[in-house]
């Protein structure tokens, strides 16, 4: 197991390096001068060169990459062009809000998805299966930014039950464990949860049906085990895959939160990305993407190791 973990980490390192390279190159595939948004339109050539030197744009690409990587490794992601604050600080402030939102969404989505998936897999081809499978297809097909708008229309504009935007009262951007903040979380978290709900339900339906069709399940029943005892075996067999899917979904939600955060003005990394894109703040864009992408790689690694630890069948294969 230790050996597997070590190998898996060794495999992740070049991927992380590659991901960093892609993030670094983002600034360089961007058209135009990255300094254009900080310089006044009548800037002199001398000022332009001075700024380029400050941001390191005057050196060769490989040199820039190594310098950038060395600084990123110690947590220095550069300076935001729009706000002149360190990118790392901006990202750190936003990332907590996105994690809160994505974690709640994963929790809701996984719970519902697991229920639908188990019901559908257990009662395959029954009306219950059809209902659960239909809900799962709706979950993976709905444009979630639109679902967010519809929920705002229903619960904020029409009924006035829940706030439409923001993460807390009075434009609060800091998450706190109180009822007012929780009320702001409900709509975005439900909106976000439909994707993992659909994917978990579809995965588990196939998995449960497959487990039940194996000979050992028939053997358990033949030996006279109660339906509950058989169910426990099914859960045990499905758990490693289900947990792996949940972990990956959390990663997808963290990386893909921009649309929902835009709809709900949720002050997380997606909102930050949106601001970075429209202010052409390339260091901020680069830094945010780097943090989210590396987080996803690490999460993948953890999921793989945990899944292998839970499921000895993978280790033997």
């Amino acid at each position: 197991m230790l050996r597997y973990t070590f190998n898996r980490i060794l495999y992740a390192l070049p991927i992380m390096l590659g991901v960093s390279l892609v993030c670094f190159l983002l600034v360089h595939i961007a058209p135009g001068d990255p300094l254009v948004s900080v310089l006044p339109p009548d800037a002199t050539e001398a000022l332009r060169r001075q700024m380029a030197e400050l941001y390191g744009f005057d050196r060769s690409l490989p040199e820039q990459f190594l310098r950038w990587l060395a600084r990123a490794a110690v947590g220095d992601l550069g300076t935001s062009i729009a706000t002149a604050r360190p990118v790392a600080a901006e990202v750190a402030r936003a990332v907590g809000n996105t994690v809160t939102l994505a974690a709640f969404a994963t929790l809701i989505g996984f719970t519902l998805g697991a229920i639908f998936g188990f019901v559908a897999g257990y009662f395959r081809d029954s009306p219950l299966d059809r209902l659960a499978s239909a809900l799962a297809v709706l979950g993976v097909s709905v444009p979630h930014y639109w679902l967010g708008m519809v929920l705002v229309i229903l619960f904020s504009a029409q009924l006035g039950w829940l706030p439409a935007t923001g993460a807390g009262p009075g434009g609060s951007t800091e998450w706190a464990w109180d009822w007012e903040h929780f009320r702001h979380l409900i709509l975005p978290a439900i909106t976000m949860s439909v994707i993992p709900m659909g994917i978990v339900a579809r995965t588990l339906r196939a998995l449960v049906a497959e487990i039940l069709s194996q000979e050992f399940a028939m053997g358990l029943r033949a030996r006279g085990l109660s339906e509950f005892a058989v169910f426990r075996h099914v859960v045990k067999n499905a758990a490693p895959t289900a947990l792996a899917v949940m972990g990956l979904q959390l990663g997808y939600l963290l990386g893909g939160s921009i649309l929902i955060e835009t709809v709900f003005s949720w002050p997380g990394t997606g909102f930050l990305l949106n601001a970075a894109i429209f202010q052409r703040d390339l260091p901020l864009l680069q830094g945010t993407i780097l943090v989210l992408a590396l987080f996803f790689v690490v999460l993948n690694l953890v999921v793989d190791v945990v899944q292998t630890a839970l499921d000895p069948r993978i280790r033997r294969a």
Partner: protein
Amino acid sequence: MAAPALPAAEGEPAPLVRSPSFWRSVFARLRRDPVALAAAAVILALLVLALFGPWLVATDPYASSVLRRLKPIGTPGHPLGTDELGRDMLARLVHGARWSLFMGVTPVVLAFFLGAAIGITAGYAGGLLGTAIMRTIDVFYAFPSVLLAIALSGALGAGIENALLSLTLVFVPPIARVAESVATQLRNRDFVEAARASGAGALTIVRVHVLGNALGPIFVYATSLVSVSMILASGLSFLGLGVRPPEPEWGLMLNTLRTAIYVQPWVAALPGVMIFATSISFNLLADALRSAMDVKG
């Protein structure tokens, strides 16, 4: 594998799909599936709107009017109401089919060809070249898809070409991975070995044996991506990164109508219904196609 392998006569270029009876049986199964038929009907209707929309609805989708802004559904002359600039919603939704379908389907088509070429090359070549190609693909695969799309189109800037390019690059890695695993399996099959023993060149083997048997499963996988692509493409326009105003595109329409949710909520939600209907139809059709072809995964 999907298509049963048939022995190929040497020197005789075989057509790509060489087992018509197989495809005929797939379509026969699809025809008996009511869900698949319904989904196909919706997609066909959307295609008709995209191709012939301007002749079906004569109202100008660009004609704005300050006096007729944000009229409700059922207004005489504007059956689906008007948007924030007083433009006819019915005309805009119908004309929007063209942009939205184009933006959603094109990236998957491009990624299908690119990904299949990359994956089959890597899988059939194997060795160092194959490993080098696939490790590069792994780097892009390591990004969550939405994040990669946003990163690329955010850096490249708003615009139709940039959005199409970003989405294509998002879908190449997963397709290449599927293509690689299919090609790797095929490489070791007996009929490929037999072709090699009888003196067939690498190109002939790839063209006849690998392509003929690999394109089916890769195609089925690609169809399952169209739904995601529709949502993402409209999502980019929703963020202001894809199609630009005043063009009618469903994601962009949702964005500009967001401010109207307190005035005409149901008019504002209409473009999303179109995206939803398209995405779910593609999803259901892809599901049906997969089970009709009995491709696992």
